[in-house]
């Protein structure tokens, strides 16, 4: 249970950073922290106390295996997260070239 609570705290840390930071790169980092907490939560779901990796060994059939599906899903989600972060960083670099600043308060052309 404590692991789930830590994972939720990590999510909230990321969310806090997303709301309060003013620097574009720090916002991107906060988003990554949220992302990591979601992945952690996903892997925790498949975890079983005392379980081993799900490789069937005919010599010892009574092992407890962890659920392999969440691990496969998290691998997919990590790749997607990588693409999202790369895209975000590319846009941040372009924004810096246009505005000459990372401060989100000075990037406010669009409103209304």
């Amino acid at each position, binding site marked *: 249970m404590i692991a789930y609570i830590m994972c939720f705290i990590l*999510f909230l840390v990321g969310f806090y950073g*997303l709301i309060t930071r003013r620097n*574009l790169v720090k*916002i991107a980092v906060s*988003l990554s922290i*949220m*992302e990591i907490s*979601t992945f952690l*939560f*996903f892997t925790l*779901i498949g975890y079983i106390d005392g379980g081993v990796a799900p490789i069937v060994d005919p010599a010892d059939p009574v092992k407890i295996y962890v659920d392999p*599906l*969440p691990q496969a*899903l998290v691998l*997919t*989600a990590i790749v*997607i997260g990588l*693409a*999202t972060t790369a*895209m*975000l960083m590319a*846009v*941040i670099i*372009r*924004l810096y070239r*246009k*505005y000459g600043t990372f401060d989100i308060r000075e*990037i*406010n*052309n*669009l409103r*209304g």
Partner: protein
Amino acid sequence: MNPLIPLFVVIPLAGAFLIMIIGRFIEEFNKYFTSLILLFMTCLSFYFLFTTGEKIFLYKVGGWEPINSVPIGIYMVMDGFTVIVVCIINLIGFLSAFYSISYIKRYTAGNYFYALFCLMIGGMNGVVLSGDLFNIFVFLEISVISSYALVAFGVESNELEASFKYQILGGLASFLILFGIGFIYWKTKTLNIADIKAAFGSGYNKTSYLFIQILILSGFGLKAAIIPFHAWLPDAHSSAPSPISAMLSGIFIKAVGIYVIIRLFFNMFMISEGMAILITTLGTVSMVIGVFLAIGQWDIKRLLAYHSISQMGYVVMSVGIGMILLSRGAKPEIASLAIAGGLFHLVNHAAFKGLLFLNAGAIEYTIGTRNLKEMGGLAKSMPVTSATSFIASMSISGVPPFNGFFSKLIIIIAAVMAKFYLLAVLAIIVSIITLASFLKFQRFAFYNKSDNNKNQNIREVPFPMVFSMIVLSIICILLSLLVIPEIRDAILTPAINVLTDPAKYSTSILVQ
């Protein structure tokens, strides 16, 4: 097993790959190739529209058969509701791609544009066809990441800023959705939508169930830009290139937002009255606030983007009324009528909002501005744009011979019959304000006398743009035929039956 279903995903993905490779060597390859594959997929989707009916087609990816009737592979499902959305995705996609043949001259890097365009279409088709929750997430990310890139395609300061906002909120939405999917997997140990329905049917924990519903609703609500989550939409949709705006506003928010909400809340979760009331309230709020935000805008594309929020509000409200009635178990025929109105309006909105964004693109293409105050007197020099945008404006504001009138009429009749008088009155008022704001658009863009003489030598836009706009305006008129009972029974009724009878969806998938 229907082997034609995965073509909707495979063809655009392969197309994006081929465009990046062959497009380097052959100039102009990208333009005609994209239009060609999208034309093929439009024909394929119409073939499915006329053959699906009440049937549910299934494709098991990799041929994994269920073991002890527990599905273990990824399922792709084609039913009456899916096929309507697939049709509008590919049709509007084809017309936007054809329109871009001329429009893309404003930009460099045509290969990237068309490759991202194909990826977005493939992702949306995947979301709509998928019968598996995690697969929905993967395809959603494919289409959403390519739409981030397409919004920033102009790489000017406004486009980049809009794309940044969109990415932050879109990223937040993705993690909420992933969190929700994780919770569902934790509680049910399955990811297949039909199987989740069966697992929830045999008992669940009320608190975590509500938490999952809220996570899923807020995640997909962010993608669909329902009012408390709408902040990114006007920026992103107005900054993108115009054919992409037509795609984003016309079909993207429906395919990855509204469609998934409707599908999951009807076919996966038990319909509960509290959730139904929440959805109806969100829809009503976005319908009313969206139109008030829209009427003060002077930038054409921002005005149209805010109207998208408002019109999506109609769809969500109407479907929500249907959910409330279904959860009470009373008057199923009025519930069907409300859902029919919502789906009808969803299809109509794709046609007229796509057309309006293409018109806005044509205006921007010729006179180089989006500000209504700098336009005027375009009706003489651009007759086709003027006529088609008149049809679209009248459709969206619900003036009788056009399609928007009939769908709004059905929604209002359903609201009155369900005794939600306040919602009916609000729907009428919002419709009138919509008419006012589109009369403003018409007057300032096309009829007002312009002060300066620089508009003298404006000519009509090139043929591909004209063609797309004319086809869409014909579709706007033809769609009003859906109100005729025979045609409605053939197209809309199967979709409504899938939604109103949730047991049918899950059992018929698990049995096959």
